[in-house]
C-alpha cells in the first residue's frame, strides 16, 4: 500500500509540475494560435502591485487571455493580432512583435524538474538514509 501511495503521489507531483510549466508558457502566447482583434485590455492588481499584476487581453472572439506584462504593454484596443501555434512572432497589423518566454516560465523549467528530483529522493528516502548511515559507519 505504501509503495502504491508513494507512486500515486509522485504521479500527482509530475502532473502539477507540468501544469505550472504549461500555464506559464501559455501566458507568453507562444503555444497559442490567434486570429482576432484586441477588444479589451485590463490590468488587475494582486498582492504586490507592479510585480504580480495580472494582464488580461479580451479578443473579438470573446476569449479572454492572461498574458505576460511585456506582451500586454505592446497591444492596443482595436489592434488585429495573428499568429500560428508555436510561432515566436505576433503579427499586429503591419508590425511584427517578437514573443519571448517570461522569466516565470524559464524559472519553472528549472524549478519543476529539480523539485521532482527532490520528490524522487523523498520516494527512496529510507534507502538513501540506510546508505548514508552505513557509509558513515564505515
Amino acid at each position, binding site marked *: 500500500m505504501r509503495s502504491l501511495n508513494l507512486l500515486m503521489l509522485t504521479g500527482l507531483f509530475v502532473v502539477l509540475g507540468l501544469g505550472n510549466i504549461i500555464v506559464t508558457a501559455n501566458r507568453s502566447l507562444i503555444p497559442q494560435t490567434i486570429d482576432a482583434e484586441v477588444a479589451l485590455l485590463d490590468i488587475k492588481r494582486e498582492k504586490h502591485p507592479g510585480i504580480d499584476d495580472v494582464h488580461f487581453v479580451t479578443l473579438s472572439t470573446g476569449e479572454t487571455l492572461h498574458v505576460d506584462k511585456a506582451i500586454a504593454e505592446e497591444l492596443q484596443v482595436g489592434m488585429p493580432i495573428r499568429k500560428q501555434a508555436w510561432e515566436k512572432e505576433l503579427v499586429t497589423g503591419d508590425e511584427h512583435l517578437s514573443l519571448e518566454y517570461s522569466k516565470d516560465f524559464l524559472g519553472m523549467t528549472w524549478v519543476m524538474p529539480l*523539485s521532482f528530483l527532490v520528490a524522487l529522493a523523498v520516494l527512496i528516502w529510507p534507502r538513501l538514509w540506510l546508505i548514508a548511515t552505513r557509509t558513515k559507519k564505515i
Partner: protein
Amino acid sequence: MREQYLTTLFWIPPLVVLGIFELFLGHRHDYSGHYLAGYGATFIAAMLGVRIAIGTPAERLLHYLVVPFCLACICGGIITEATIFRLAKFDEVDFFNQSLGAVLAMMIVQHFLTLLLDKTGSENELPDNADSTLEKQNLTSKPPKDCKVTNASVRWCDGGIIIGVIYLGIGGVLAFA
C-alpha cells in the same frame, strides 16, 4: 538513529525545494510562499489526524487515507484560492505550487506512517527493510490489547505540527510580504 531519520525527513526536503524556488524564481517570492504554505498546512492537518488516530482502531486505516487526504487538502487549496485569497483571478500557478507542497508533505507523512505502523523496532531496520506481510497483518488482525499510544509517536506528531506551523508561517510571510 530514528530521531535523526525523522528530523531530516521532516525538515530537509521542503527546505531544499524552497531553495530551488528562491534560486530560479527569486523575483516571485509568492510562488515559494504558496509552495511552503501548502506544505505547512497539509503537514499540520495530517499530523493532527495521525495524532488523533494512533492507538485507536482507525490507526490501521491510515495507509489507505494518505492519497484521499492529499486530494482533500488540494481541494481545500482550490476553495481558499477561489474565495478568500482570490484577488485578481484564480491563479493557477499559485494553486499548482501550494498543491506541490501538499503532495510533498503527504509523501513525507507516508514514510512517517510506515515507520509508525509497521513498528520496525530495531534501529537498523528502516521501512524498506520491513516485511511487507507485517502491513497485511496489521490490517487483518485485531489491535493488540497493549496497543497504547506511545509517548514517542505523540511527541513526533506534536513535533510535526510545530514544523508545519513554522513552514506555514514562513510561507505566509513570503506570499504576502
